[in-house]
């Protein structure tokens, strides 16, 4: 088809048609539900089938310390989980990008990828088999004589963190590998040649170069962790106190859609402001970072 030669309106139509599926998808699945949820969150039920516009749902959130507590806890745990993921993923990415040669690098990458062929539920259940009181790890601890009786390793904050880090690792490794691969080895050698040591090279050469990748990985992992429902619920049980559980409870258990919608928007506001803060602190531009993911 020779559409490039046609008049300007034809080309515009062409672009419009090509973009149509994406725009439709964006509108139907993202914009519409959010508008609906926004409207929902700003109304209050006064009597059966009687609604008025109000900010009561948001007032409930700010007035109830339990919600506040869970909200902040979810944010803090997500930040901790993101930092841990970064600390674990960085050496892994460095090994894949710089140390492993040729096929070994690909192999290591596949090893990181393989767990993701299994569904998240199954992976998390795997952790439960390992960690529950009658599970594999407590059994080994008793066998080694480290504990007298099997201990329950599930339902701790640390357990939730282990699960979250495990779930997000790949999403940190991928952008880190791509940003570290683009680092010219001769820069590292030059810094070494000029008297730099491991630490100063990491701080002055490697991290500044990889910063867009680090930021990209952190944003993705933070958002995934913040919005994760399955892992905290399964590994943390009733003590997990994750904000997504509150949303679930409002929508499904209490059938209070208005409250659930307000919570959803608060979570969206939280993740948006944390991402904005992260970009400001690392001095990165959103467009540069997104190219890395």
């Amino acid at each position, binding site marked *: 088809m020779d559409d490039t030669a046609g008049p300007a309106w034809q080309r515009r139509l062409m672009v419009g048609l090509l973009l149509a599926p994406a725009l439709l998808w964006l509108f139907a699945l993202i914009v519409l539900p959010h508008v609906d949820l926004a409207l929902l969150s700003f109304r209050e039920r006064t009597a059966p089938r009687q609604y008025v516009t109000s900010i009561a749902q948001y007032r409930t959130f700010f007035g109830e310390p339990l919600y506040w507590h869970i909200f902040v806890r979810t944010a803090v745990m997500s930040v901790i989980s993101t930092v841990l993921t970064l600390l674990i993923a960085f050496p892994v990415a460095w090994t894949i990008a710089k140390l492993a040669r040729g096929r070994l690098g690909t192999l290591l990458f596949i090893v990181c990828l393989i767990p993701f062929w299994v569904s998240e539920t199954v992976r998390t259940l795997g952790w439960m088999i390992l960690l529950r009181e009658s599970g594999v790890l407590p059994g080994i601890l008793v066998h080694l004589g480290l504990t007298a009786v099997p201990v329950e390793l599930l339902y701790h904050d640390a357990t939730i963190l282990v699960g979250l880090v495990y779930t997000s690792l790949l999403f940190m490794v991928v952008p880190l590998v791509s940003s570290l691969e683009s680092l*010219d080895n*001769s820069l590292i*050698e*030059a810094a*070494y040649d*000029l*008297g730099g040591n491991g630490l100063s090279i990491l701080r*002055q*050469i490697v991290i500044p170069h990889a910063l867009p990748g680090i930021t990209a990985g952190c944003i993705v992992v933070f958002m995934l962790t913040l919005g994760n429902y399955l892992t905290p619920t399964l590994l943390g049980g009733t003590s997990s106190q994750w904000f997504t559980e509150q949303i679930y409870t409002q929508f499904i258990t209490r059938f209070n859609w208005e409250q659930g919608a307000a919570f959803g928007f608060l979570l969206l506001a939280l993740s948006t402001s944390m991402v904005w803060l992260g970009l400001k602190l690392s001095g990165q531009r959103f467009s540069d970072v997104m190219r890395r993911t």
Partner: protein
Amino acid sequence: MSTPVAAPDLEVVSAVKRFADHTAVDALSFSVARGSFFSILGPSGCGKTTLLRMIAGFIQPDEGDILIGGRSMGGVAPNRRPVNMVFQQLALFPMMSVGENVAFGLARRGVGRAERTQKAAAMLERVGLGNAARKKVDELSGGQRQRVAIARSLVLEPTLLLLDEPLGALDLKLREHMKIELKQLQAAFGTTFVYITHDQSEALVLSDHVGVMNRGRFEQLGTPQQLYYEPATPFVAGFVGANNRIAGRASAVDGNEVQVTTPEGWVIRTRASAPVAAGAPVEAFVRPEAATLGRTPAELPPGQPSHVGEVESLLFDGANSAVLLRESATRFEFRIALPQTGRYADLKVGERIHFSFDPERAACFPAGGSHG
């Protein structure tokens, strides 16, 4: 060496480096005098980069020793050696300003902020980039980056500056310009430069001494003039400068004079650069500028054996113009530089012309040897 009184800044003592399937550096020994410009010239894969990286400390030699400033470098890490390197792609730090690049090494030595800023500025001034300290690296031109890379190393006052084909990435015009600039910088700072290149013109123009490297060894080590006029091996004769290579058999040997007959039957007279046995296969080399053209045999210098050829093609390149001939009887290809007087500017393709060369300037070697 030209200054035997000063202790050499670099001494390589039978250094060996083997990789899985080949020996990259093969029992190499040489020394570089203080303040001199030393080049290692060789084709790619000859081991020159391995040698340079051993001197810098990125690779450890399997055998032998490397002494810098009289001190053995065995077990000394690159960041502890009094050596700095200018990388092929320069490896300037894009995340830092030009001034921070130059101050990087000083900062690593614990020099205070005020002092290193001042020192970096002074160094940039010396390389003619006095106002570039705040600029980003990518705001500079190729030549300016080159100078920053050198300034970044020289500000540390190394005993030795290693340069790994730093002009390779530049375009021709800038390369010619940077050649002169490098030589001037080296003269101004007096630092010992060790320069590796595959470009024989760079090595000849820049160096006090050149080691011609092939298959992990030096074929010849000498001044550029020695390499050009007195090549020690067929490899050097073929690699340094343009040369007509004439392979054949030593049909007659008379002292130093060797008569070479090519398989096609062309007979030339040459001088033996290495002992040649009568009847043995040989290679002779004649520089294009060593031969003279003449429209009649009378125009040729007296006493030189004259030959006849037809013009195959004219290679105009300003002062480096040449004519490609074919010897009339044997069709042997022979290149002759055109005189700069413009005397043969009117030569036509297919024209018959006489030529001759002084047998003294035709170097003859036994064939085989180390010719790559």
